[in-house]
């Protein structure tokens, strides 16, 4: 483990055991997260983003199961912690803002109750007043009015307010890593932008490490330092955000960038990625993306590509990435 790696995910494989067969949601995924960075996980639905982030907290939903792999935090493997230590780890070291945050709170408890019970689960000695004060401070960070919000029940807040309250809740036990799983999918564009502003502030203020997963690459482009692109349960490319946007090496990444509309560009220059999303129960023999790939060569249909390190910070999983580079940088006029 490098000196400034805070989390090290190694060869995680997750399968969902269904009546109709086994669905492999993650296939030997590895990822090193550097302390203090914001890393974006980009991929379409079914690519495995949520499964990966759930694995970090070991809350993969049934019937999914982590078959093998390790997740190292410090010198401990999270996946081998007993339930008590796991509960201590959860939220105190790594916390998460969920995708369906609208429904992430108990309808019969007030917002304040949520804060207090979370602290109670982690500390033996605490005073409710202190927790309330800290909660008020955090609510202030996310630009909510503590007096009103703390006493409210979840259903009394609007969607955007609930989302921000959840973000505040995720910070109450001072975690080192914050995972955000599609944090703004259900919200309108203006609230989205607002929340990203808040997240940027929090990152600076609290020196948080953030893992942000989304299907919308443009959304994460403004915030992330690095981006990992996922497809069919594998990470197909990881590098810094500029390279991802200007000089992607993987055909899928390139396709994503080309398909994303931009305000300054002519829509006619956009190109959709042809083909259909992969059927995770019947993956092809060779590369998972081969059926849809413009750069597909014979080898791609036959052998699964290994991870190639272009340089220390750039990984690509493709047989034919040289040709992708040859196409040149992506310029948007």
């Amino acid at each position: 483990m490098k000196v400034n790696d805070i989390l090290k995910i190694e060869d995680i494989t997750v399968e969902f055991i269904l009546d109709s067969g086994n669905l492999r949601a993650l296939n030997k995924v590895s990822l090193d997260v550097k302390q203090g960075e914001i890393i974006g996980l980009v991929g379409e639905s079914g690519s495995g983003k949520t499964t990966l982030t759930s694995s970090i907290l070991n809350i993969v939903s049934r019937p999914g199961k982590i078959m093998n792999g390790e997740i190292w935090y410090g010198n401990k493997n999270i996946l081998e912690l007993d339930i008590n230590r796991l509960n201590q780890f959860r939220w105190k070291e790594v916390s998460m803002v969920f995708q369906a945050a609208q429904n992430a709170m108990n309808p019969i408890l007030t917002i304040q109750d949520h804060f207090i019970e979370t602290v109670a689960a982690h500390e033996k000695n605490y005073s409710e007043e202190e927790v309330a004060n800290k909660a008020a401070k955090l609510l202030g960070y996310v630009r909510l009015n503590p007096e009103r919000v703390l006493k409210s029940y979840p259903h009394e807040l609007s969607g955007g307010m609930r989302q921000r309250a959840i973000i505040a809740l995720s910070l109450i036990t001072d975690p080192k890593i914050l995972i955000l799983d599609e944090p703004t999918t259900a919200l309108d564009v203006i609230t989205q932008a607002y929340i990203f502003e808040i997240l940027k502030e929090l990152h600076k203020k609290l020196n948080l490490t953030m893992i942000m997963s989304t299907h919308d690459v443009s959304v994460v482009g403004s915030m992330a330092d690095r981006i990992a692109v996922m497809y069919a349960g594998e990470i197909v490319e990881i590098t810094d955000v500029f390279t991802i946007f200007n000089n992607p090496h993987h055909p899928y990444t390139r396709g994503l960038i080309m398909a994303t509309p931009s305000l300054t560009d002519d829509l006619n220059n956009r190109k959709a990625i042809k083909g259909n999303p992969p059927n995770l129960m019947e993956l092809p023999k060779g590369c998972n993306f081969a059926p849809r790939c413009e750069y597909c060569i014979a080898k791609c249909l036959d052998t699964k590509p290994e991870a190639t390190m272009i340089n220390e910070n750039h990984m690509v999983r493709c047989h034919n990435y040289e040709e992708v580079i040859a196409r040149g940088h992506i310029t948007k006029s």
Partner: protein
Amino acid sequence: MMKIVEVWVKKLAILVATILFATSITFFVIRLMPGDPVDTMAMSLITNEGLDYNQAYEKAKALLNYDPDKSFGEQYMSYLKDLSKLELGESMSSKQPVIKVIAGALPWTLFILTISVTIAFVLGVLIGMYIAWNRNTLIDPIVSVYASISGSLPDYIVGLLLVVLFSTKLRWFPSRGAYSSQVTPGFNFLFIKDVLYHSFLPMLTYVITGLGSWALFMKGSAVSVLSEDYIMAARARGLSEKRIRKTYVGRNAILPLITSLAISFGALFGGSPLIENLFAYPGVGFYLNRAIAARDYSLMQGMFLMITIAVVLANLAADFCNILLDPRIKDKA
């Protein structure tokens, strides 16, 4: 604010109308009976009390709250007037004021029902919760089978079977009455022991019949709560399983059951004639049945009114509980 008042005014109006409607039915029944009930009663008064015809007729009119000579409208008005003063007349068969009979019978019915319903509910909820929480147990199919069988047998049949088994064959429990004639009523140990002994079979009947459906109901409710997002979010926050089971699943799952509880209490009150008749248990239902069989109109009116009031109050309680316990409804109401 206005909306709340409007809703409650409507509710109250329906309740009052219900009581009026129910009591009016008894009013009409008496008048629709073949023959002249006043005359019939007068005749029996002449024989039993040695009055002459006119005296007997007057007395009969008073006892029945029925004067055939007055116009229909006048009769109804005086009937309602007496009702509001709680002048329910005198029972023909027992020569006691109806109010007194009701006061004597009501505690027995309440005694049996309250204890039985509480036991059936608490046991059912605990079992249902257990099944939902620990999936794939042996108990699950057992409870389903049990619920199918107990749901197919009306409660009075279960009672009959219990009597045949425990009273007749095994002679373990008495089959009639609230207490034996040898015991003196009062707050003494012998009496209380005897009362409990006599109440065992009727209570067992209610518990056997009700247990299964409460368990299934709770299981269904708990299972659906378990699939909610906020349960997973609670786990991610490191909350203990105990806390989640109690405050997250338990309290949310039981909400719909509470309303049912109040309503089923009312329904059991309505069904009391059957069980109380079977066990010759001197509750409200027992006396209603006897009054109908003996054509004791005043007693019949009184008992019927009592049952209706009980059901109405139970429904009201159901509404109240709902509003009290579920913060989401508090605001809608």
